[in-house]
């Protein structure tokens, strides 16, 4: 797969260097600086300009979608299974957390991981027919799952609140309410860092290597003793766990969750994030989320100066479709692979 192709001068001399958490010292420093910058960002210090609430909301959204995209990347990029149902799982996580905290009185701190676990369980259940399937059959099966879950959402008014949506409680910790975006950013950041480190770490373990082996050549993987059905289920469970966490985080940020956000188009959006950002790359998933969610904002900012016609509303979807296709044809590794090539060129 193109996503794992490394530049020519990236030579590895031992197994140890293949399983490091950060590829270079520079990436480690960049990651730490990035996290530190996000920590400082919401602070309001006198005399310094503070970041506007629209930007904060956008960053939080990128975090939530990014977590789900990361989960999808574990499934698509590392395991090589297409899934068209990530948005449905994302929505299931959101509704579950809203339901647990709103109707059953579970604290939001606990309801978010619980929603992740419930979504993972759903993923495993749905994977039962899918675990024996290969390639195209699996893709279409997940498409069917997306349609069925979408239908379930629109039917189960007690769970999703129907067309009006359901209200989710704000996040609170030890009785302190962390409802404002400025506080909530830290919650999302915490989950994002934990989930990213988990994903990066997963690929250093036996299980992670088994997933990659299954992607690269499933017959060989089976021959050396990798249980394909088990690992396929595992990948599905992890991926839907991520989707559930991301969805739950988004639910408690947006406070109103409605079914419209979890349709097939949203699932394609998730795939677009993974492909444009970079298949089989942890940072790539997050870059993809920034790209897909940031692009409309950027387009809107431009559109404010240039008045668009009514057809402009569809320009975004058209651009998205075109971007997916062009990336697949010209740079299947996504932005992350391109970045790796550029830095390799630079270091020479």
């Amino acid at each position, binding site marked *: 797969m193109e996503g794992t192709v490394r530049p020519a001068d990236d030579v590895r001399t031992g197994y140890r260097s293949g399983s490091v958490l950060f590829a270079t010292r520079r990436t480690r420093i960049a990651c730490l600086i990035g996290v530190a910058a996000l920590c400082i960002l919401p602070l309001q210090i006198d005399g310094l300009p503070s970041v506007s609430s629209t930007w904060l909301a956008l960053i939080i959204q990128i975090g939530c979608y990014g977590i789900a995209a990361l989960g999808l990347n574990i499934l698509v990029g590392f395991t090589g299974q297409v899934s068209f149902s990530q948005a449905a799982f994302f929505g299931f996580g959101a509704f579950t957390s809203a339901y647990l905290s709103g109707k059953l009185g579970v604290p939001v701190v606990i309801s978010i991981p619980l929603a992740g676990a419930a979504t993972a369980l759903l993923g495993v259940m749905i994977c039962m027919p899918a675990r*024996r399937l*290969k390639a195209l*059959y699996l*893709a279409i099966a997940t498409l*069917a799952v997306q349609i*069925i879950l979408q239908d379930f959402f629109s039917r189960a008014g007690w769970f999703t609140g129907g067309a009006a949506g359901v209200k989710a409680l704000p996040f609170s910790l030890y009785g302190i309410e962390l409802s404002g975006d400025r506080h909530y950013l830290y919650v999302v950041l915490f989950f994002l860092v934990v989930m990213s480190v988990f994903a990066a770490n997963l690929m250093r373990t036996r299980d992670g290597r088994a997933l990659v082996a299954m992607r690269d050549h499933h017959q060989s993987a089976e021959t050396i003793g990798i249980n394909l059905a088990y690992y396929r289920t595992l990948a599905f469970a992890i991926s839907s766990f991520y989707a559930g966490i991301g969805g739950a985080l988004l639910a408690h940020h947006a406070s109103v969750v409605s079914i419209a956000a979890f349709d097939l188009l949203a699932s394609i959006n998730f795939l677009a994030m993974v492909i444009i950002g970079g298949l089989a790359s942890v940072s790539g998933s997050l870059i993809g989320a920034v790209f897909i969610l940031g692009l409309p904002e950027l387009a809107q900012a431009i559109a404010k100066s240039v008045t668009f016609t009514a057809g402009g509303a*569809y320009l975004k979807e058209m651009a998205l*479709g075109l971007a997916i296709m062009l990336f697949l*044809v010209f740079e299947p590794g996504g932005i992350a692979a391109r970045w790796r090539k550029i830095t390799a060129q630079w270091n020479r």
Partner: protein
Amino acid sequence: MNSSHLIQLIAGGLIVGALYGVIAICFVLLYKGNRAANVGHGEIVPIGTWACWWLVTSFNLPFWIGFIVCLGFMVLLSVTMQKMALRPVPGPPVMFVVVATMGLTLFFQALLKGIFGASTKPFPPVFAMQPVNLFGLEFEMSSLASFMCSIVALAGLAYFFKVTKLGLAMRAPASDRQAGPLSGASVRQAFALSWAVAAIVSALSAVVSEVISRVPVAVEPAGVMLFPPFIAGGLESISGVVLGGVVIGLLESLARFSNAEYLGVGELMSVAPFYALLLILLIKPFSLFASVDSKRG
């Protein structure tokens, strides 16, 4: 009362199912010819309808001229699409093609909405509207014509692939990548031809489904609905896919009937095929009519 209603619905299901079968054949053609699952093919169908609608209403062309122009346009479009979007990816993993065509789908869907607006528009009537009485059942003239078209299309395809030299030349590389070209059949020609034939068939079925059944031209795709027959019938078997289409059509009708009579849960019929699809895959992971080769995929 009830039983006659049921029979009426079953007949309707057969008619719709035959149409599904015809459209799903395009998937099979493309899959066999290119090993490419064109997920976006369902989206091509409304393009044909819109083109025909536009020609007929804005230029007041007679229906059949609009139809023929539309056929030519569709062939051009899909051959270009194949050259541009899918050719540069040599022997791609299934995943890439699926997602690339999904991107293409998104693009075309948005383009259509941008050009024609998101609302539905009525197609001018082509056939007489009065119902026809046949075997004690009432049919719209249009749905009978649609059924006839499906049958003719199926027969035509069968003739093309079984008898004509061109059809055989297309099947050869599809069935054996090595032996086919050795016997003189051109792979490139087969690729392009399979797209062209798929385009013609889909344009035909598009116009048939929308014009003849008097459904307003809808942008919202029926594309997703075509997967259940395609998968249920196996990826490579034309007769299997037609059977799958008929089964899914009947299933929709039965779901509508049982819903109206007993269940009352609302729009069950649009989801029922997907439940059936999962069930089929649960029992037979390689669907009902899969060849040995596609199991290895």
